[in-house]
């Protein structure tokens, strides 16, 4: 089913009219209600003439803006109208704080109900929500959407895996919502208990909150005998429910009447054409509590405006291909560690520990070396097989990045870890510069 078929199947022109109308009232609201945006929008010439096609005349909002104005600088509603707060831990400095008014919670419920329908849910289905409930937006976002649609909810939250499996067996939910890694973890646990995972009651899995590859999709679908679909969201915009993959598995539908997407070149700010990777920028057209104008997500995606086989006209974004913030430039080419992660996942199914080492050679050329920890499942006693693996990885990375690399196989646990994850980038060039000064 299509939850909001009048909007999700709207033709281009009436949709643009709706988006332009909503953008203009957003600009009016921001100018009236928020001091920071009032100042920024005062610098935009002929602001009353802005429509959705000329949205690029408006200023960006960044993660730094949110951090610098912590806690309430970007809020546009009076604090008394903010009914729910969510906080995500920041890696540096202030955490990211978002707040929802009653209207915002309704928008969230609507967007998540649309997402559930995109994934194939229908009213009265049973859903097991195994995303964390609490300050993380995953659990509650799914909860509100499921209520809106009239699903029957089992709010298991995350963890307590044996209980999750017992609940699945006893109550036969049709839909599972959790992170992809947790879906695989539960499969291991189920096998230890001697359960036949292919007999699970789940038919649809909605997985997100972390990057995952098509080979992980296949693994999850195979082990649980389900359709595994990707959900995208970020708390600054609304939480989960910004975009959802349909069973066509050809991109994630963005509800562009609520969250208007643009894909830009992260350096120049220019709009990228369909199919070309760039940074996803989102404008919340209808939110009240903390509406954001042209928010830079730092997520690298491609966009596709063509009509989908499922009948929706809403634009689709690809899976997240990388991040702009851990980008390194090697010989003039932008390299995202997540691209390499992606390649390794495609080859290996799961992600081995790896590290990128960038160095400047004597001839002033940058060298890129990818260190990969050897794991049992691809270790062989034959050198030629290890060499072949090394070569497969090297070729795949090289063709993805378009830059020459060297691949070095390492012993397990030999790469430096920070918080359990291997440190992903070592840029020796910066150290050289410091020594030179």
């Amino acid at each position, binding site marked *: 089913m299509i939850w909001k078929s009048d909007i999700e199947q709207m033709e281009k022109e009436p949709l643009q009219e709706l988006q332009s109308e909503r953008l203009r009232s957003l600009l009016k609201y921001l100018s009236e209600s928020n001091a920071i945006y009032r100042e920024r929008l005062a610098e935009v010439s002929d602001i009353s003439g802005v429509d959705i096609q000329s949205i690029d005349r408006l200023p960006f909002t960044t993660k730094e803006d949110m951090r610098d104005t912590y806690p309430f600088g970007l809020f546009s509603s009076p604090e008394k109208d903010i009914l729910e707060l969510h906080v995500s831990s920041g890696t540096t400095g202030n955490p990211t704080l978002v707040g929802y008014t009653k209207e915002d919670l309704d928008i969230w419920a609507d967007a998540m109900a649309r997402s559930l329908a995109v994934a194939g849910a229908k009213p009265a289905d049973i859903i097991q929500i195994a995303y964390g409930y609490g300050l993380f937006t995953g659990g509650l976002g799914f909860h509100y959407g499921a209520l809106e649609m009239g699903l029957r909810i089992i709010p298991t939250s995350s963890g307590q895996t044996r209980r999750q499996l017992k609940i699945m067996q006893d109550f036969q939910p049709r839909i599972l919502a959790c992170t992809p890694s947790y879906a695989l973890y539960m499969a291991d646990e189920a096998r230890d208990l001697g359960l036949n995972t292919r007999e699970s009651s789940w038919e649809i899995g909605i997985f997100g909150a972390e990057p995952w590859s098509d080979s992980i999709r296949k693994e999850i679908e195979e082990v649980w005998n389900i359709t595994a679909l990707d959900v995208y969201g970020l708390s600054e915009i609304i939480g989960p429910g910004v975009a959802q993959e349909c069973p066509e598995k050809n991109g994630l539908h963005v509800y562009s009447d609520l969250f208007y997407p643009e894909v830009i070149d992260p350096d120049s700010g220019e709009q990228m054409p369909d199919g070309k990777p760039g940074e996803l920028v989102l404008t919340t057209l209808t939110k009240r509590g903390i509406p954001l104008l042209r928010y830079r997500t730092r997520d690298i995606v491609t966009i596709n405006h063509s009509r989908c086989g499922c009948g929706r006209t809403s634009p689709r974004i690809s899976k997240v291909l990388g991040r702009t913030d851990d980008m390194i430039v090697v010989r003039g080419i932008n390299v995202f560690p997540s691209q390499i992660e992606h390649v390794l996942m495609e080859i290996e199914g799961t992600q081995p520990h790896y590290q990128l080492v960038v160095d400047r050679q004597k001839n002033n050329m940058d060298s890129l070396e990818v260190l990969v920890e*050897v794991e*049992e499942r691809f*270790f*062989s*006693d*034959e*050198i030629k097989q290890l060499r072949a693996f090394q070569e497969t990885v090297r070729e795949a990375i090289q063709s993805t990045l378009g830059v020459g690399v060297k691949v070095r*196989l*390492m*012993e397990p646990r030999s790469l430096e870890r920070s918080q359990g994850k291997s440190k992903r980038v070592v840029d020796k060039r910066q150290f050289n510069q410091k020594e030179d000064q």
Partner: protein
Amino acid sequence: MKITQISVFLENRKGRLHQVCDLLGKAGINILALTIAETEDFGVLRIIVDKPEEALAVFAAEDLVARQSDVVVVQIEDHPGGLADVLAVLQQSDVNIEYMHAFLGRRSEQAYMVFRFEQPDEAISVLKKAGIRVIENDEVVQL
């Protein structure tokens, strides 16, 4: 018939082999045969030991990647052309060798060859038919 060989992935750096052999020594595990296949930055240590299960447990405890594989151990006649005779048998029967290495028996003072075959069972029957001595599993610690 087939003998268990353990292969361990090692980075090619100073002192690494010593550390690994030391682990086995401290665990009271004896190395009967050893070879290293190496590249510029890594190597594969291949060993036959008296207690393979225990050796695997030692490596697992140290987070080393190790695996066991089946090899065939053959006695080589101690005269010029001894090895060539064995290889001739294999070649005539179209048996493919992945790799091989040699060791000397401590007690028997005989030369032995460790073979890794694609199809070890086929290789064993070919060798036996030609009257070549193939070492049995429990014999290997006595050599």
